């Protein structure tokens, strides 16, 4: 099989992994003239495909042959998809060639499980080893790890990679038993705890090394700077509350950088256990918004998803939905309120809140000031007090307030000739997470 055909199969096999981040790596570059590449600071999206996703890394599987039978996955053993396998050298060369042409930030390597978890892990690590040790590659490397692999191998992967991840796939063991019978939630969490420990140790060692002055420094053991995971949404019947509680638990317990929510989308080779459905794109979007509120806006899951309503409102963003349920909190005075309270105003993101806090030290802010900060006035006005503005209380108290914010009628099914327009504001929001 020629390289082009392999790339076709093994990129196609990898595209259902949503993660493509290339940010948050330790700063490194190749100014010593020996190696190739750099990382640090913001990640870069080198291209975008017509599904709106960023292309940042060469994302491929080493092989799509797999012993497991995960029914949402095109590579499961029951699928009749054509199988292929890269040699480690082929992936290394592709990565270097693509990188030198500035197509990519680095490599995201995953693999189907062949022979055993340890055997597969060793193959994946070999690619990263060659890149780092033979070619002194300093670009971004993200390695997918297998929870059942030995701790020693996971440690080794972490020493070469900037990020490592284990996909949790589904939020409960019950769902895994039905759709991914080889996967085990306890094993996955245990492995994540192991990785967290290594990341913490490496961080502590780096801090300690910084404090030692005028003494030969023991070099801090290099280790990936973060781990992430992915949950598939819409393949099982888990509620948003279950999904977000699981995510929240992982953020707190193993300090994940990111949880990716991947709406289950039609795949070639559908499984008899999991009939094809249209991808739940809006639900996926709402989950990301809620996730952002958990991490950066001081919300907790119970506030976003009260017990009586365990699924997010698909028509309104979760902060607005929360505000409509908690109108007694409003109006909030933008010239006096605390940061925490400003964060809760629908239409104000963390960036604008920081601007407001900076600007109000010198003057009382008016609506015109907010407009210059590009705040969506229509959205915030019912909820705020400004130097020249008080909301009509009648509106805040009225039952029509929800109506006020609902989007106009639109088609929700996929129409390929005229896909529903994403406004630039939506896209910017998806990118920055500003809500």
């Amino acid at each position, binding site marked *: 099989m020629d390289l082009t055909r392999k790339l076709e199969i093994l990129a196609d096999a990898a595209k259902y992994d949503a993660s493509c981040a290339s940010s948050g790596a330790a700063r490194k570059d190749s100014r010593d003239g020996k190696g190739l590449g750099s990382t640090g600071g913001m990640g870069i999206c080198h291209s975008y495909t017509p599904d709106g996703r960023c292309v940042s890394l060469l994302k491929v599987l080493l092989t799509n042959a797999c012993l497991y039978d995960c029914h949402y996955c095109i590579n499961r053993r029951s699928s009749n998809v054509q199988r292929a396998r890269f040699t480690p050298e082929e992936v290394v060369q592709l990565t270097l060639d693509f990188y030198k042409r500035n197509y990519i930030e680095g490599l995201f390597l995953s693999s189907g499980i062949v022979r055993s978890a340890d055997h597969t892990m060793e193959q994946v690590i070999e690619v990263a080893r060659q890149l780092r040790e033979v070619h002194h590659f300093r670009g971004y490397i993200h390695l997918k790890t297998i929870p*059942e692999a030995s701790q020693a191998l996971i440690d080794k992967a972490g020493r070469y990679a900037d990020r490592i991840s284990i996909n949790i796939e589904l939020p409960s063991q019950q769902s895994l038993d039905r759709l991914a019978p080889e996967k085990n939630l306890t094993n996955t969490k245990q492995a994540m705890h192991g990785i967290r420990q290594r990341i913490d140790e490496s961080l502590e060692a780096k801090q300690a090394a910084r404090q030692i002055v005028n003494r030969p420094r023991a070099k801090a053991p290099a280790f990936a700077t973060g781990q992430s995971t992915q949950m598939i949404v819409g393949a099982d019947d888990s509620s948003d509350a279950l999904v977000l509680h699981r995510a929240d638990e992982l953020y707190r317990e193993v300090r994940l950088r990111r949880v990716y929510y991947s709406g289950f989308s039609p795949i070639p080779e559908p499984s008899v256990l999991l009939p094809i459905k249209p991808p739940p794109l809006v639900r996926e979007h709402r989950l990301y918004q809620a996730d952002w509120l958990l991490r950066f806006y001081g919300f907790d899951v119970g506030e976003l998803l009260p017990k009586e309503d365990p699924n997010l409102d698909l028509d309104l963003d979760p902060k607005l939905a929360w505000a409509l349920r908690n109108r007694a909190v409003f109006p909030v005075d933008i010239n006096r309120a605390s940061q925490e309270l400003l964060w809760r105003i629908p239409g104000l993101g963390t960036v604008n809140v920081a601007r407001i806090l900076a600007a109000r030290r010198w003057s009382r802010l008016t609506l015109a000031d907010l407009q210059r900060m590009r705040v969506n006035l229509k959205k915030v006005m019912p909820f705020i007090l400004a130097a020249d503005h008080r909301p009509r209380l009648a509106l805040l108290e009225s039952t029509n307030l929800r109506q006020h914010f609902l989007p106009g009628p639109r088609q929700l099914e996929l129409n390929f000739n005229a896909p529903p327009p994403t406004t630039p504001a939506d*896209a910017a929001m998806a990118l920055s997470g500003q809500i």
Partner: protein
Amino acid sequence: MTHTAQIQPTFEVWRSKARELLRQGVTPENVDWVDASQTASLLAEEPANYQTAPNASVKVPADFLRLAQNVCAHTDERRFAILYRLLHRLTLGGEKHLLGMPSDRDMHQCNAWAKAVSRDIHKMHAFVRFRLVGVNEPNGREQFVAWFEPEYRITRLAAPFFEKRFASMDWSILTPDECVSWDGEKLTFMPGMSRHDAPAADAHDDLWRTYYRSIFNPARLKVQAMQSEMPMKYWKNLPEAEIIHDLIASSETRVRTMIATPERPVKPSPDNAYLRKLHAQQHAD
């Protein structure tokens, strides 16, 4: 008295001239800023004229200089005047807190320009595509050339990124305004060139398009989301952009085919020691 400040449109030249005017206490409404590159006048002052002037008298925050650097790279002809007004207010005007006031009109305008420039720099880092043109025989370094058309005058601001990342290759980036090349030792800047001075393709473009085609998921078409991040003005220099239209057009058929595919039955577990162990463990839990 009105001063005419006719300058080459770079941050360094603007800074020298602004320092000089500030030292003389010239107020913003008395300066007429003129871009010498647009007027081709013999009177244009050279940057060298200012090199001797000491600069100790005016102190501004580093944040202002960073802002000014980006603003100067913009092409709006009002930029030098508004920037000078900002500088004047910040120093002689005594408005020390101006930089912390994003709602101020001048700050708002300069922030908007700086943001547009910084987005353009970011897109240049993302969308430059190097083409292999040969190997430097004496030292074996590979030589690459790229053609790029930025919206603003950002070659100097964008170049350090490429230096850090591609220090071990020889490379040049050609743009209509200004070109830059790296030989392993230093960055060299040259006048702008034309698209025909750069190679049109690279042998790896086909493989890259294969990857782009395969990583696209036709079941999640979101064309607008793609375009807002990768505006069409960049497409003509991206090798992958030529297949975008086909990918969009064939999506619907591809998804229909998926939906029409008969569902595959579950195959029995193969005889594998690792799987046996895994299943035994699952049942023990």
